[in-house]
């Protein structure tokens, strides 16, 4: 059955994951993490399949998945901006960076731009506090960010498409 966007996901891609964690106690979160690696997020049909194969109800699986900030339930944009909002970054100006994302892209926490290019997640702390404020873009850390540097980065990524 298709997922919430009407897309038929290839659920057989989950088979190696189920094989790996067969009989392993307490592996639901690990399975969800690997599923998100495969599909980019957790579509409804994937969650249903995981529920079926792990002997849990869909409610139980959703209950675990929605508890943790790492899990996404909609596709993220091409560029995932994880903006650190930890204490050191906050003190050193992360608010100004959030304002830039809002003014330049109308982008707020948890959302994706209509063109599908950018997604923003405010994260608690990336542990690069001495280089604050910090933004991670698709896993790459950009340190000592300023509003100007962020605007330049957005421009560069937008032009790449």
């Amino acid at each position: 059955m298709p997922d919430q966007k009407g897309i038929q996901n290839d659920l057989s891609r989950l088979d190696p994951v189920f094989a790996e964690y067969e009989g392993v106690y307490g592996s639901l979160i690990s399975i969800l993490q690997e599923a998100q690696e495969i599909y980019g997020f957790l579509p409804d049909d994937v969650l249903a399949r995981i529920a079926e194969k792990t002997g849990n109800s869909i409610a139980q699986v959703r209950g675990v998945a929605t508890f943790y900030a790492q899990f996404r339930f909609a596709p993220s944009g091409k560029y995932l901006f994880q903006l650190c909002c930890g204490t050191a970054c906050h003190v050193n100006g992360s608010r100004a960076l959030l304002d830039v994302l809002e003014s330049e892209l109308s982008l707020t926490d948890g959302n994706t731009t209509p063109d599908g290019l950018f997604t923003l997640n405010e994260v608690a702390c990336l542990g690069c506090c001495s280089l604050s404020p910090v933004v991670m873009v698709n896993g790459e850390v950009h340190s000592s960010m300023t509003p100007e540097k962020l605007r330049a980065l957005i421009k560069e990524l937008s032009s790449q498409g």
Partner: protein
Amino acid sequence: MKIIVGEGSCGIAAGAEKVYSAIEKQLKKTGAKAQLGITGCLGMCWLEPLVDIYDDSGALHRLVKVKESDAEKIAAAANGDICAVAQLEIDPEDAKFLEQQTRIALRNCGICDPMSIDAYIERGGYGAIKKALTEMTPEGVIEEIKISGLAGRGGAGFPTWFKWNAARTAMGADKHLICNADEGDPGAFMDRAVIESDPHTLIEGMLIGAYAIGASEMIVYVRAEYPLAVVRLKKAIEDARARGFLGKNIMGSSFDCDMRIKMGAGAFVCGEETALIESLEGKRGMPRLKPPFPAQSGYKNEPSNINNVETFANVAWIIENGGEAFSALGTPDSKGTKVFALTGKIKRGGLVEIPMGKTLREVIFDIGGGIKGGKRFKAVQMGGPSGGCIPEALLDTVIDYKKLAATGAIMGSGGMVVMDEDTCMVGMAKFFLDFTAKESCGKCVHCRLGTKRMQEILSRIADGEGKDGDVELLLELCAAIKDGALCGLGQTAPNPVLTTIKYFRDEYDAHISEKKCPAHSCTALLRYTIDPDQCRGCTLCAKKCPVGAISGELKSAHAIDTEKCIKCGQCKSVCRFGAVFVE
């Protein structure tokens, strides 16, 4: 000659991998004879990228803020001209940062190659577990830890020997030793540095703990936001297994023990030990009622012991050098050393490991160099969202579990965020409540609703809608939440509010009664005005204003319509005549 590039997460974020590649290229090009390698995080983060050169006589030349373009100079040094890198060498004033420290937990960080088990062994690694297995009984190991006075470095400060003993004596054949590498406190990165830079010290410390309590399984719960730490730890585990330091019959003894990594998925509450266990079991990370304690009933309801990364990082050193050597450092109530992540408005930000007993002033001013940008110190936040803000008047407080608790703050995991005159303390309290309200697991009413209500009140105050009685209401909520919350997250969530009210009451009063933010930080309370005497009427601000709030003729003084103004600050940033004021 050896050339070592610092590659912890901070170094890499500052460009260390590119510097490494550039040096590699230049060495090849010039045919210079030098060994090129990497190391982890030295903790001098404000100077990254760092490159250490050991010349042929073994003398160290520490190069700082190294750029890719400096690779040529480094290759020249490798070819015999060490003066080529003279300009890059560390300033003696900056070098004092490290010289004033006593490194036990961080003893190998930034010195040896984290990807090499041989580098660890060369520095005495795996000697302590060998000593424990061949010369000591599990009880003897626990006794040595007791003598050392080692207390949990994750924040609770509970005597480590006691927890180990409780797990040792608990009923049950299958026991688990768990490392809490969740490090959720924003502003803390000590554990990340240890795992990325010295993963074997964690393995060895845990092995000693597992031997002591009788566990055959060790699990490291690492937060999802530390991918490099996971990569390095995985390699270290594989290498340790290949050498017979993990698995069956470790080092030829009858002790079997293996290790695996479990990734967190983004939940601050999973730093609480029972919530962590729930997460290990694939469930929502909601804390359990204690008792029973994990030592009796933990993972899979079997005896389990959970300790923080930094706690384990001290263990091998203690067994090697003896408990007394550790307890010779520190204060009567707080033995040994503690690692702090010094960040915020500080000149020299990074990792500081010092014996307990130094004062906050010594750490912030002598080691950290004081406030950057010539501003005035206002407060230091210790212990993350569970901690509190300590004002200038208390800077001579000694770093000690009890003395810090007396201020209303806590030692915590070691995050030390320094704030200056431009930081609004009401805003900081709101910041922490935004965090804890979001991270509250929701299980108990006091935390779930209490943090939400405190967050709402603080938001109203910061937005200029504070009412008389708000502070009293906050204090009442704080007392109730402390009393009724199920776990440490809820019980300590009021601390930032309590300490900011205690030490910065005047700021709360200004926000509520005068609708002013003394630090000029809370956006809603800012008023942007143009000084007509300074304004040249260049119209730049009017053009930049996104809401058309500025009016004025060319070459005449402009004015801001405060009703329309959204306080974005663009006018102030474009004005070349300093005519825009914020109050």
